[in-house]
């Protein structure tokens, strides 16, 4: 199974490389290092959110509220910055992560304590959080001139050739890799998604693990809220509408099993980059940006089909039982 996953990552890397090569024949300079760095920077927020989503999906759950969480937190942070320009940026970032983590904790609590299916909880909180963004702002916008220069410029500042936004994404990728592969929480996340029954016998608290996964996802969504608002220099109710699907898509493309327990940080990152390359290539090669939604849809469906085939090879029970998923050995 491990080798299969490695194949998936190599496969994705090859596909992305071929795509970039193909696009650069149509558009000069697409494969130039500067442009690739731009694409990475442009995809940073998706990568961060996909890693949060992946943590949740590993535990056999799903978080559809990440984009709404991002919108609410982004609005809250932007309004705070507009109202109190003197507050230090570090405090605002802590605030963003805190609000995000709190909203994630609400999701996690409902899943953990009340055992409401995650999809129902997060479908509900998705509308609630975005509605709260409206209530908070009264439907108004926070524009660039209302935000402080530090607030706007820090993620854009180049350090060693890359903007800070890219470095944040890289740090979070490394952090996610460390947490998911080297810490007990990571093992617990894989175990409670891969085989809940075995996880319980191994003494893992599945509910608590799911709760923590939602908090992680929420905290990353909160951080992304600040990054998004600062990057696009505007905050309004509908920012990142529908972006939760892109995060799920990135995970599915990256080989993270929606049934839980299977997937790697590298896969999620490559899945996000795959979408990022397509998104950046469409205008360059002259395809209408309106086509992006349909392309994501096709890619998601194909990825699900592909994942199912890969997982089935591990040995599937002929008479499928919803409770007994195969143990990935």
């Amino acid at each position, binding site marked *: 199974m491990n080798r299969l996953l490695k194949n998936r990552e190599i496969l994705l890397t090859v596909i992305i490389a071929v795509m970039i090569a193909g696009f650069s024949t149509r558009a000069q300079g697409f494969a130039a290092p500067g442009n690739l760095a731009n694409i990475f920077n442009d995809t940073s927020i998706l990568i961060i959110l996909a890693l949060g989503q992946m943590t949740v999906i590993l535990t056999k759950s799903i978080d559809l509220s990440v984009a709404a969480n991002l919108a609410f937190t982004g609005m809250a942070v932007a309004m705070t910055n507009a109202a109190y320009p003197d507050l230090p940026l570090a405090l605002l970032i802590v605030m963003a992560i805190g609000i995000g983590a709190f909203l994630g904790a609400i999701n996690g609590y*409902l899943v953990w304590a009340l055992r409401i*299916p995650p999809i129902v909880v997060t*479908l509900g909180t998705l509308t609630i959080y975005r*509605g709260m963004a409206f209530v908070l702002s009264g439907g108004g916008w926070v524009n660039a001139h209302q935000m402080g220069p530090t607030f706007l410029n820090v993620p854009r500042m180049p350090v060693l050739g890359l903007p800070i936004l890219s470095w944040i994404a890289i740090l979070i990728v490394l952090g996610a890799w460390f947490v998911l592969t080297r810490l007990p929480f990571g093992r617990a996340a894989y175990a409670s998604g891969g085989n809940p029954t075995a996880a319980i016998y191994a003494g893992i608290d599945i509910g608590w693990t799911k709760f923590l996964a939602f908090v992680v996802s929420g905290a990353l969504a909160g951080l992304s809220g600040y990054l998004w608002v600062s990057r696009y220099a505007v905050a309004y109710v509908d920012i990142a509408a529908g972006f939760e699907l892109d995060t799920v898509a990135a995970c599915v493309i990256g080989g993270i099993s*929606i*049934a839980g327990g299977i997937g790697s940080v590298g896969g999620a990152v490559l899945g996000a980059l795959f979408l990022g390359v397509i998104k950046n290539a469409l205008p360059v090669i002259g395809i209408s940006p309106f086509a992006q939604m*349909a392309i994501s849809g096709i890619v998601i*469906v194909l990825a699900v089909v592909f994942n199912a085939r890969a997982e089935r090879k591990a040995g599937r029970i002929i008479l499928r039982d919803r409770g007994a998923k195969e143990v990935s050995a």
Partner: protein
Amino acid sequence: MSDIASSKRVIPDRLGSKTSRLLASWEVLLFGVAVLIFVFNSFASPYFLNAWNLSDATFNFTEKAMIAFAMALLVIAGEIDLSVAAIIALASTAMGAAAQAGIGTPGLVAIGIGTGLVCGAFNGLLVAGLRLPSIVVTIGTMSLFRGISYIVLGDQAYGKYPASFAYFGQGYVAWVFSFEFALFILLAMVFGILLHATNFGRQVYVIGNNEFAARFSGIPVERVKFILFLLTGVMAGVASVCLTSRLGSTRPSIAQGWELEVVTMVVLGGVSILGGAGTIAGVVIAAFVMGLVTFGLGLLNVPGIVMSIFVGLLLIITIAIPIIARRIKEMS
């Protein structure tokens, strides 16, 4: 919805009267809520108790409820379809394109429902045929179907529909009873009979309660699921005909976010999101409750996005209440 199955499975020896009593009480409770909201609204706004206003209010839920009937069967069977709103958009776009080409009303209706059928078949093929998890598949097709609408329409809109096409969304059968409301009642009866009085309906319940046992009982699980996805697609097509006719125009963002409201309606109606339980009567009452709430809030000038907070809260609270109640009962 494979992620929902918990490690602990309880299979009742028989579907005892306890379950049915609980269900009955849920519908009675919901009906009480509907009456309460009705009374509250008629005090809160002087414009509420007016036959024509109430008739207008039914448009808030009739189209969504048509899909909710089919979705209820799907959820009872343990699957879900999040692409229904996108199917509405695609069917509406297909009808719009056909209308520009000069196709008449019967042709438009056939195209709308046919598009729904094809989309439903596509979902069904992926979920039942290839045995993929319906949540992810329909998230993907949701993006695909609406994406096609965006490719066709971009930022444009279709608006030239034949005059006779307006009947489905704007016509009245008798006095204040709109065509949509009549269709809603008719479909409620059809789906009620299908679920509660046919073999097919029993099979849906069995699959939702224990797919494993259903297979051993010789129920063609895949075929039943495929048919349910077809039905849901067709109902989304029917809803698209009504909605397009009512609005008289098509944009790719039409019916945005309806999948959530449809699922909320189904769950509010007492259908277990884990599958295996629920009634059409519950969904009908839930449709009225949601329609009355949005209409009442609308009369009080509450903006639409704030209403969606209520819808979201309604969804979570209605699922949480029975769980908390059961928890308390277990403790005592």
